[in-house]
């Protein structure tokens, strides 16, 4: 592998083997770049994927892709990218594309680590396409999410995440995270219903978001199912256009600091419940959601094309 891992002479990763060598060469002060797409088909044993070691301080992917990660691991909790198990540190990732990830397991985290030392992952200008099936039917009681395992926080800036899959039960996509200027697109089916008291299952739980939008479809295979969009969030200038299918009640709880909105015409027969007394989350028709002048009039910051 080219480079020495310093900021001026980063490691240049061009193969899966290069990436895995970071298990020994990497560290919390190591700098890396992707020199080409990393196609996991060309790992030594692609059917037995093991977590790629994200053992660096900074990865500049330069728009290159990590592609074709495929895992089928029933009854197993897995994380796909392994953070350095050292002291608290921040891992910054720029311009990374993840393409054609297809994972089935009991419970999945994108980022994880082997101990409970806290870490932060900053994702900047990244674009992920994830197909993830999870069979777990119990909502986790700790602060974990699809994006990360325990002790890890994610900060998204200018990221575009597409997520599809069939899940045993609704779980957080974000928990204790920060999302700024990003788009989250989902098409997820939940097989097991949850009660209206399991608020920690929200797709955004205890998360701060600004200038962010959620689109797509939430399906329920269970009758009379509840769906939690947000719980304990701090949200500003963000919106939700989520079509719901076979959902009885949609909950959007939290502190909406400035005008946000949701499209209530695409929620089917679901009742939409928002935090009482919070006037900054507006329930709009589809036409209102697509009308720049109207959105400006209610305080949503946007422009006409």
């Amino acid at each position, binding site marked *: 592998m080219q480079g020495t891992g310093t900021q001026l002479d980063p490691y240049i990763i061009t193969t899966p083997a290069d990436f895995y060598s970071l298990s020994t060469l990497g560290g919390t002060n190591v700098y890396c770049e992707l020199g080409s797409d990393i196609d*996991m*088909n060309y790992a030594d*044993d*692609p*059917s*037995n994927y093991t977590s790629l070691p994200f053992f660096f301080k900074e990865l500049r992917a330069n728009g290159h*892709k990590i*592609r*074709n*990660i*495929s895992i*089928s691991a029933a009854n197993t909790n897995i994380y796909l990218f392994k953070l350095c198990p050292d002291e608290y540190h921040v891992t910054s990732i720029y*311009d990374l*594309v*993840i*393409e*054609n990830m*297809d994972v089935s397991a009991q419970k999945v985290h994108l980022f994880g680590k082997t101990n409970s030392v806290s870490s932060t992952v900053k994702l900047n*200008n*990244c*674009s*992920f*396409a*994830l*197909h993830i099936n999870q069979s777990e039917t119990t909502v986790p009681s700790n602060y974990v999410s699809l994006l990360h395992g325990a002790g890890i926080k994610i900060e998204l800036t*200018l*990221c*575009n*995440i*597409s*997520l*599809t899959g069939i899940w045993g039960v609704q779980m957080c996509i974000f928990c204790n995270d920060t999302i700024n*200027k*990003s*788009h989250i*697109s989902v098409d997820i089916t939940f097989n097991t219903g949850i009660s209206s008291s399991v608020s920690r299952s929200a797709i955004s739980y205890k998360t701060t978001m600004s*200038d962010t*939008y959620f*689109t797509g479809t939430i399906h329920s295979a269970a009758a009379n199912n509840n769906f939690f969009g947000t719980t304990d969030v701090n949200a500003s*200038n963000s*919106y939700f*256009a989520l079509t719901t299918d076979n959902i009885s009640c949609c909950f959007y709880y939290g502190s909406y600091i400035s005008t946000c909105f949701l*499209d209530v015409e695409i929620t089917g027969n679901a009742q939409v419940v928002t935090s009482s007394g919070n006037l900054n989350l507006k329930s709009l028709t589809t036409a209102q*959601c*697509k*009308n*720049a002048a109207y*959105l400006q009039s209610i305080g*949503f*910051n*946007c*422009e*006409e*094309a």
Partner: protein
Amino acid sequence: MGFVVDPARENGYPSLTELPDAPAVVRRKPYYIYLMRIFDASINNCYPCIPAIENIPESSLDFYYGNTHGNTAFFGNTTATRFIFTPSSN
């Protein structure tokens, strides 16, 4: 830059033009090919491995998706390397 309402983008909802494009979730199984024994359902037997072929064009492998990794399926209990699967296995 912030939200822009453009009928040509995001189905007319506000969108952020500075975001990177989202890659498609293609749901195509990766094309690593398994060293496998081909299961013959009629005689409950396995044939020897078929020859290895490297550098398989991705476009030729779309059919591959949909098979399972179950114990009795084409890919059961196999060791991964780059071999090609032919759909006319039995």
